[in-house]
């Protein structure tokens, strides 16, 4: 197997006495889509925050292609190729869809400091942004403010921003949360496309079991901040311990999943 693109070593974060992520060591490889499952409060989003830099680990390390990125800011990690989409829609609400995407393209291009030339002069930025608009089928709403989009389109834009960053590691935090069943396939298709590129590493937090079944190459289970299980989807799905902690609880909070 190829060398891992992303590695966590004993990754831990404490909030006062509460250990939200406890010594999680894991390696993620290019061409592999890993689904992270676990009940609410298991530390999935916190684990993501530690990797993408919104939180800094209390101890342990994060390595990207062998380079330590543990203490870096989110922007520096983005430049190392770690990209992240958020669970709660997290856009630039008053800017148009095209502007939103172009910002992500521009961040990657390093043109953010150019002060004297109009944005329209940077045709390659607009062209790339339009490419991702088409890829996410948002072209028709390109000139609408992000805040005015229906929820499903906002989720797609969330994914478009991540794609436009062109990272090596894609992290999706419940990309279909709150989406109706008609719209979810759009987003899942996009993730499947990314997965098809074998140079990309994909991490996905997801509750919907049909999604997990369809996409996962590997599943890791977090419970109370600890890595409970890690392995092949069929193996994990059939394991008893996982059924007890995860599926049991998931049924208990089924209302959220159905939302």
């Amino acid at each position, binding site marked *: 197997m190829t060398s891992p693109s992303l590695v966590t070593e004993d990754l831990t974060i404490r909030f006062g006495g509460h250990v939200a992520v406890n010594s999680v060591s894991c390696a993620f490889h290019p061409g592999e889509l890993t689904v992270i499952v676990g009940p609410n409060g298991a530390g999935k989003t916190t684990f993501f925050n530690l990797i993408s830099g919104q939180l800094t680990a209390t101890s342990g390390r994060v390595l990207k292609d062998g380079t330590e990125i543990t203490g870096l800011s989110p922007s520096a990690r983005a*430049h190392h190729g770690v990209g992240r989409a*958020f669970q709660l829609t997290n856009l*630039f609400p008053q*800017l148009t869809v095209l502007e939103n995407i172009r910002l992500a393209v521009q961040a990657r291009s390093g043109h953010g400091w150019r002060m004297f030339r109009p944005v329209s002069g940077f045709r390659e930025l607009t062209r790339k942004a339009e490419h991702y608009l088409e890829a996410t089928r948002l072209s028709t709403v390109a000139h609408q403010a992000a805040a005015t989009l229906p929820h499903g389109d906002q989720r797609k834009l969330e994914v478009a*921003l991540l794609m436009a960053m062109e990272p090596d590691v894609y992290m999706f935090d419940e990309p279909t949360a709150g989406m109706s069943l008609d719209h979810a396939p759009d987003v899942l298709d996009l993730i499947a496309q990314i997965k098809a590129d074998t140079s990309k590493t994909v991490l996905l937090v997801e509750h919907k079991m049909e999604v997990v079944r369809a996409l996962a190459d590997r599943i890791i289970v977090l419970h109370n901040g600890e890595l409970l299980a890690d392995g092949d989807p069929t193996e994990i799905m059939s394991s008893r311990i996982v059924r007890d902690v995860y599926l049991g609880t998931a049924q208990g909070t089924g209302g959220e999943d159905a939302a």
Partner: protein
Amino acid sequence: MITSDTRHTTGTLVIKSVVALIAALLLFAPFLFQDVRSLEVAARICIFIVLVASFDLLIGYTGIVSFAHTMFFGFGAYGAAILLKQMGPGWTPVLLGALAGVAVSLVFAVAIGLLSLRVKAIFFAMITLAAASVVLVLASQLSQITGGEDGIIYKSPDLFKTATKLLTDADGKVVRLWDVKLNGKLAAYYFVFITSLILFLAMLRFVGSPFGTVLKAIRENEARAEAIGYRVVAYRTAVFCLSATIASLAGTVYAVWLKYTGPDTALSFSIMIDILLMVVIGGMGTMWGAVIGAVLLILAQYYLRDLMGAASEALTGVPLLPELLAPDRWLFWLGIIFILLVYFFPRGIAGTMMTGRKGA
């Protein structure tokens, strides 16, 4: 923004025409309004458009609240004033003063920026307020250098003396164009107009550039801007420095025009409040708003009294009205106008007209 706004073109068109009209009026101000006070108002409008626009880079584009904007304006003004006083009239003190003002402004901006742009907005605002207060106190205490409360009176470069003749006819008399003497006063006004225009156009350029889009991204969603790869602290510090530099240069120009610099003209908090009102009335996050806000507030400050005096006289005999419109009550009416403006244009005049009635 080239790509957006196919939606509300009428409002945008109206605002842009108004701004173009204002620009034309300012360009021909010495010929259109041939008295000293009007020219004073026109020059003040030019300077304040730049000052308000540079403040809008912070508050409207990036979402940074600072109360230190007059401090930077003051650095530029005092830089030129002190050197013009010490070295006598000439261009060298003006240039050196401008450079010194910018240098001091940058030192303060970098220090405040790096120390405090990481903290919450409210703490940042407090720190800028504290810095501005300290500088204001220093300016009035260090009277040997700054002239204290009285300020400094000095001469501007010879070119701008009223006695300077730009063009003379055969008899050695100053040439008149449309009945306006081509003298140093005219040169001084165009110095103010052109430098203001250049600074304003530069800012228009900044906000339309990739850099400008990053500023807006930071205003809209700081965390996401960071997550997609922009170093937010660096951008915020940079725009704070940029804005301080422009305010400082505007201060230098104003000092050269006024030939007087004191706490009341260059440093006081009443100027800061004026800037805030202008940016709110005009509309945040658009350079056109700065133009409209500055023009409206300055015209109101200078002419509302006269207008009310005239109205009051015209209405003599009518009960109550002349009393209500007595010129002494101008501040009361100014307040009412502000409240109405904010009520009907919640995003400022330019902001509301250009974005349409969002959420109304």
